[in-house]
């Protein structure tokens, strides 16, 4: 009798835990909506893309709330980082699994894991002190879209490599054996058998990488220059959505503060879009 009673209490407690963690993400969206409601009501959705500039401190009437340059900056930085990091990341995973001698492959795997674990402020610090001056020597001012792209590339390459590597690990061993039995060369095996078979996992890797790039705050804040503008070249400073929140949250009041929560909502929408794409493409769990 008492058995089933404690069991019921246990399962009830566990269910409560799971319910809380499961609804946490809904809470986050709810709070973002509640906090951004004043801006959405008084400024309106349209003005976040149609205003002439981002000057949010004048209140709902006189302020300007154009988020578009920052959305463009986030998109460009992410896209640029993806262009560089996708071949690098997948190439690294291919190297570690199929090209490297065994010991070297394991060592390289460790390096990738360490790179993935380095905090973003450390990348930012390095970018600020080493990378930006290098870019500045080529084309001032140095803190620019290009620096942001390069730092983001370094940050998401290990993410892509780790997920791609996990996908390679999960491929049936028989594929490799069959390829070897057919006498295929190494590249024919990798390019003709492995990569096509791992396609959905590779997509997931790239999507995870882009999620990390969109959400990255500190490193980008430290190297991108943070001028609100739509960039016309790689060497112009930009401000991303995340950097904008981090920069202005400290002193934002009223509608300004609400507008920052709106940009949080925009970020969430971008991530939701990625998860949706992954869901359709891989029919599986993005982060599992």
């Amino acid at each position: 009798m008492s058995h089933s009673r404690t069991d019921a209490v246990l399962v009830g407690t566990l269910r409560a835990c799971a319910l809380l963690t499961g609804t946490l993400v809904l809470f986050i969206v709810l709070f973002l909506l509640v906090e951004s409601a004043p801006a959405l009501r008084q400024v309106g959705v349209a003005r976040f893309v149609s205003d002439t500039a981002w000057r949010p401190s004048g209140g709902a009437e006189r302020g300007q709330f154009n988020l578009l340059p920052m959305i463009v900056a986030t998109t460009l930085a992410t896209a640029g980082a993806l262009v560089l990091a996708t071949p690098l990341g997948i190439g690294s995973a291919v190297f570690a699994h199929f090209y490297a001698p065994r010991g070297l492959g394991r060592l390289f795997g460790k390096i990738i894991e360490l790179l993935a674990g380095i905090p973003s402020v450390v990348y930012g610090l390095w970018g600020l002190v080493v990378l930006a001056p290098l870019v500045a020597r080529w084309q001032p001012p140095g803190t620019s879209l290009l620096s942001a792209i390069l730092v983001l590339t370094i940050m998401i390459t290990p993410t892509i490599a780790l997920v791609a590597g996990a996908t390679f690990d999960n491929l049936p061993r028989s594929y490799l054996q069959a390829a070897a039995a057919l006498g295929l060369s190494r590249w024919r095996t990798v390019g003709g058998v492995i990569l096509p078979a791992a396609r959905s996992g590779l997509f997931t890797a790239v999507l995870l990488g882009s999620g990390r790039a969109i959400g990255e705050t500190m490193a980008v804040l430290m190297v991108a220059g943070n001028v609100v503008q739509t960039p016309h070249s790689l060497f112009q400073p930009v401000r991303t959505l995340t950097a904008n929140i981090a920069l202005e949250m400290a002193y934002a009041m009223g509608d300004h503060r609400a507008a920052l929560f709106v940009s949080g909502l925009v970020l969430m929408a971008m991530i939701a879009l990625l998860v949706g794409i992954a869901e359709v493409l891989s029919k599986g769990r993005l982060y599992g």
Partner: protein
Amino acid sequence: MVKEKAVKNQAVQFKTSGKRSVWSQLPDIIATCAAWSAALVVTGVFVWILADVVRHGIGAISWTFLTAAPRNAGREGGIGPIIVSTILILGVCMAVSVPLGVGTAVLLSEYTSAASRFGRFVRRSLDVLAGVPSIVFGLFGNAVFCIYLGLGFSILSGGLTLSCMVLPILIRATEEGFRSVPDDYRMSAAALGMSRTSTLLQLLLPAAVPGVIVGLVLGIGRALAETAALIFTSGYVDRMPGSLADSGRSLSVHIFDLSMNVAGGDRHAYASALVLIMILVATNAVASWTANRWLGKRILTA
């Protein structure tokens, strides 16, 4: 079983016959070069960054640096109070997220079938939670813990915000730990008529401890690396915290502040970065050692 293992251990041989013409081998040569150069670039950048941090940071590190209070906005002095704040924030984070996370993981792996609607809902929302940008956690934590619950800029707010962030990692690793417990255990327990509670507490939980430890350590790593979620929740104050209700600056926030807002703070920013990296490498080593030794399985750290 034995046969399969033998096949597995046999290295797959690729054909590298010299009879084919140079032209037909060209794609192979290019691919080999590409793979090696990708690895070289990644390794090069890794060595570059690490050497840079070590070279600039090692000179400033001493026992005094680790224990003294920062002076002159951090340009002089040390990081003693900052290390204490970091540990307190981590403590709050883990005290909240470990019970919640382990509870959820137990429910998902032991008491919910993979196909059930509730299980699917929780898993999916955890997947989304893992992808939420850290600055959004910062906004959420600021609105909920600092203002709505009235905790203000405090170590408590920061720790609670981080605990939301590390839940997905913690739950995934813990679940993995429970999944590595053989089904025989559960069947034997059921055959012996053990209650679900004692099966869990006396049999499954001890067997799944390695998974919990891996999750814990990975969570600590993520929490230590975090900056954006902390600036508006635990704040900037670099004094020694008197209680959990005080504002406290974490190590990562300290690095950010020194490099962005303090002219001439680079030297100590590098030294703090080196300390942070050393702590992270140590935690990572513990995690992978535990995982290899006890779980026999590698858990993705990204």
